[in-house]
């Protein structure tokens, strides 16, 4: 930035008549929610939802004034005549079998689907430009979206918001499964929040914890909604969601207890003054019907029961806007403890680091008698750096063998080592190509040339062949008459 210069010069301006005529501001509101769900597998899922609602007709006004709604997205809506925009970035995959059904579904990688207004003439051009702009805003590779990975679904992906007609010509959908989600995608997402990450629930959004999880999904959804019950005019709703699944074993040293501080390494300190609703929901559903298995601290103000996705759930509700909630200690650290720790043995897992250390997985399991225990580990084949291949790469690579120890008396069992065949490249390919080409060219051209330019004539065997000459040489040396 160039040097700043204090403004000392002030031009006297004949400003028009002063006085206040306070125009009716378009109303906007922010509501934030956090749902914490202990998952059946022992992991903990946290789902944030920030909803910004703006009672404004974005497309009509020439000059746009933004308050809670982020300007960057508002400009997109008006410039590209968007009706709906849904963008999600996901790292990992929601394991429905272990974690139960998710609140918010998203595919791995980046997903973008957009409904344009029916006034847009060249949908493909707008779509291309929009994906480029979004790639700039969210620091993602959305600019790789082109006609090869864009589809126009005709039956699915109906508009989620207010829509009069659904002509699927104005819908575009693209997925980038390879997109890796990281801090640089989270930072611009956080900047769209009115309270940034300074107050309210967004304080918990600390990148180094959020990406230390088994599942991370962040999304932006924009849609028009009815402003009032009779739906005479529309409002715009921006929904920013973020779901993470914390691996309880890694963060909790094998215990299933958790607290906000342990998960996010932050606690809630103050409510966002701009939010009209700011709540934390904790799922305290009893899994065993007979007795209470878990307790939360501090005890919630209210609890709430509902049937969600087919199961009856109980939630403890903490309202941050309730001034008594963030108490004298000036922070709120919600904790959950299991009264009777479930028998789950001990699992210690130390993930590998490429080229530095191997994986270590230790499990303390009580095996029933006469049983078969099967431990399976999935792995992916990968290409090594070409200097890291052994001289005989086709032989394969050894994986260290599992060891099992008995606990009561000394018995240690070793299994066979595993030999894995890794994909090996053809190391000699470029050399072969050059050699072959050179040989073909030299042989073809050389023989052809020789054939055409050589002079062929019959030679009289005057002095005989080479053998005769050699024989004569030897004979001369021996003093024998020549042939």
């Amino acid at each position: 930035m160039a040097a700043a210069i204090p403004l000392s010069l002030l031009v006297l301006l004949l400003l028009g008549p002063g006085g206040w005529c306070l125009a009716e501001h378009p109303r906007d509101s922010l509501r934030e929610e956090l749902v914490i769900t202990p998952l059946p597998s022992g992991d903990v899922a946290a789902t944030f939802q920030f909803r910004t609602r703006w009672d404004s007709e974005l497309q009509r006004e020439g000059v746009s004034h933004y308050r809670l709604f982020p300007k960057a997205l508002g400009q997109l809506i008006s410039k590209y005549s968007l009706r709906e925009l849904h963008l999600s970035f996901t790292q990992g995959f929601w394991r429905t079998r272990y974690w139960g059904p998710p609140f918010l579904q998203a595919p791995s990688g980046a997903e973008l689907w957009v409904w344009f207004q029916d006034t847009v003439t060249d949908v493909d051009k707008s779509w291309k430009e929009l994906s480029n702009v979004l790639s700039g805003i969210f620091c993602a590779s959305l600019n790789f979206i082109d006609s090869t990975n864009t589809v126009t679904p005709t039956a699915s992906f109906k508009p989620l918001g207010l829509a009069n007609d659904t002509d699927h010509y104005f819908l575009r959908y693209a997925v980038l499964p390879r997109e890796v989600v990281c801090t640089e995608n989270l930072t611009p997402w956080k900047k769209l929040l009115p309270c940034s990450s300074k107050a309210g629930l967004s304080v918990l959004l600390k990148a180094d914890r959020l990406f230390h999880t088994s599942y991370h999904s962040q999304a932006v959804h924009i849609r028009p909604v009815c402003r009032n019950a009779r739906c005479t005019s529309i409002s715009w709703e921006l929904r920013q969601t973020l779901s993470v699944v914390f691996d309880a074993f890694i963060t909790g040293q094998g215990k299933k207890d958790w607290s906000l501080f342990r998960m996010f390494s932050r606690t809630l300190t103050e409510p966002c003054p701009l939010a009209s609703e700011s709540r934390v929901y904790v799922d305290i559903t009893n899994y065993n019907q007979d007795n209470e298995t878990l307790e939360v601290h501090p005890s919630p103000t209210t609890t709430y029961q509902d049937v969600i996705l087919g199961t009856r759930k109980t939630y403890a509700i903490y309202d941050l806007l309730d001034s008594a909630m963030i108490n004298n200690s000036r922070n709120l650290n919600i904790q959950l403890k299991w009264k009777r720790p479930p028998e789950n043995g001990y699992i210690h897992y130390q993930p590998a680091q490429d080229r530095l250390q191997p994986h270590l997985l230790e499990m303390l399991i009580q095996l029933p008698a006469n049983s078969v225990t099967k431990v399976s580990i999935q792995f992916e084949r990968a290409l090594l750096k070409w200097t890291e291949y052994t001289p005989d790469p086709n032989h394969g690579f050894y994986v260290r063998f599992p060891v099992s120890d008995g606990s009561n008396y000394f018995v240690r069992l070793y299994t066979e080592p595993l030999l894995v065949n890794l994909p090996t490249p053809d190391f000699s390919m470029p050399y072969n190509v050059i050699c072959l080409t050179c040989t073909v060219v030299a042989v073809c051209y050389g023989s052809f040339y020789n054939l055409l330019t050589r002079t062929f004539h019959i030679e009289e065997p005057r002095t005989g062949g080479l053998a005769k000459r050699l024989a004569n040489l030897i004979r001369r040396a021996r003093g024998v008459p020549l042939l």
Partner: protein
Amino acid sequence: MAAAGAAATDLEVARGKRAALFFAAVAIVLGLPLWWKTTETYRASLPYSQISGLNALQLRLMVPVTVVFTRESVPLDDQEKLPFTVVHEREIPLKYKMKIKCRFQKAYRRALDHEEEALSSGSMQEAEAMLDEPQEQAEGSLTMYVISEHSSLLPQDMMSYIGPKRTAVVRGIMHREAFNIIGRRIVQVAQAMSLTEDVLAAALADHLPEDKWSAEKRRPLKSSLGYEITFSLLNPDPKSHDVHWDIEGAVRRYVQPFLNALSAAGNFSVDSQILYYAVLGVNPRFDSASSSYYLDMHNLPHVINPVESRLGSSAASLYPVLNFLLYVPELAHSPLYIQDKDGAPVATNAFHSPRWGGIMVYNVDSKTYNASVLPVRVEVDMVRVMEVFLAQLRLLFGIAQPQVPPKCLLSGPKSEGLMTWELDRLLWARSVENLATATTTLTSLAQLLGKISNIVIKDDVASEVYRAVAAVQKSAEELASGHLASAFVASQEAVTSSELAFFDPSLLHLLYFPDDQKFAIYIPLFLPMAVPILLSLVKIFLETRKSWKKPQKTD
């Protein structure tokens, strides 16, 4: 038998020679051109000579000035000579490769009846109102009215008056050399209203060699087709301050009229946003004497960077953005004042950053804290804020205060805050700047393409270059004939076309092969082909020479 054999051998040898020669011929006639053609890069022809000619372009900026003499302004016998035209030409000394000449073409004529009537009215406002009506003047042209020496239209001690439109009034004189004296005064006033070295130097600041003034001159925004203006209210402490600003009304009332007046210079879009928890990058210094906080001038550059990340890029357009920030300091740091070099608080409590925008610190009145609980509702006084922001906007567009000649009265500004001749002056400067930018772009493009011969030049790039060159020439011609509006449009076209050509992505698809890679590819192909051909050519050459020498020896 032997003779026949020798003859046959000779025949074979001759055939072998012919075959070798034919090989060589095919390789040279067919092979080489084929190789050349297939590996050649497509390069459309470019007007290199015209582009290098642009550097030595002479810009003549012609300002048509109509000088109207009223009845008693000059001696009678001088009036007899009217109408006639005088040209005043002057070179503007700038250290720039383009020669810029400024030419005032003064068309002298007598006043028409309604002009006489208007200029004999009681006050300047009335006269202006009456003169305004007939016709709109063309952009860049000026009209000067010479009134009688003793006219009461101007205050007695004033010699001239510059109006808000494209008119000025100059006092006449009853003197033998009246035309000369009045002519000098007219040039003085016309210069103030149109072209001065300052304006052009500021316009060309990027192209001039560095000097100590250049930093100051680089304040104006670079010329562009359009501009985005963003007003941001920064509220770092929403717990204590509930700030409201009537930005809609302020934009409608103050900013939009100004931008409408400026609309000839580009497209403008205005928006606003409120950013919460956005703090400045430096901690202000506490002054216990006045119990207030101060930002030193040398700290100001560090203020902007942390805020800028929150401002959000203008996602929707490519135009440069002008940011105007209204900063309401947090309760813990208020009141906050900006200090200038001497340590005195800046009256406006605002500063601006060249080519970026302006920041104003808006302190909440301390009385509001007493009565109510936090957060306090703060209504921003938009008149005070907009005064500062509009002044900064003028500076950032390079509309500097005019250098008024001595004894000259300047009219009050128009309600939109911009005088018509100030807009003309901006257009002059922007046209010259655009021409300089386009010329530089074209020159560097030609240089680059000339230096790297592997770059493909497509036809559309070439046509953009031709269009840019034609537009530069057209703009220079229009400037020389005094048509400012069309010259400005042509200069904008020149910049757009030249940058389109320069930034064309096809130029980036560089077919660049390093020499060692070329050899690696060519040697396996060429060596087996070339060596036999060359060897047999050498052999044929030696034999022919031998056969030439033989007959001489036998002689």
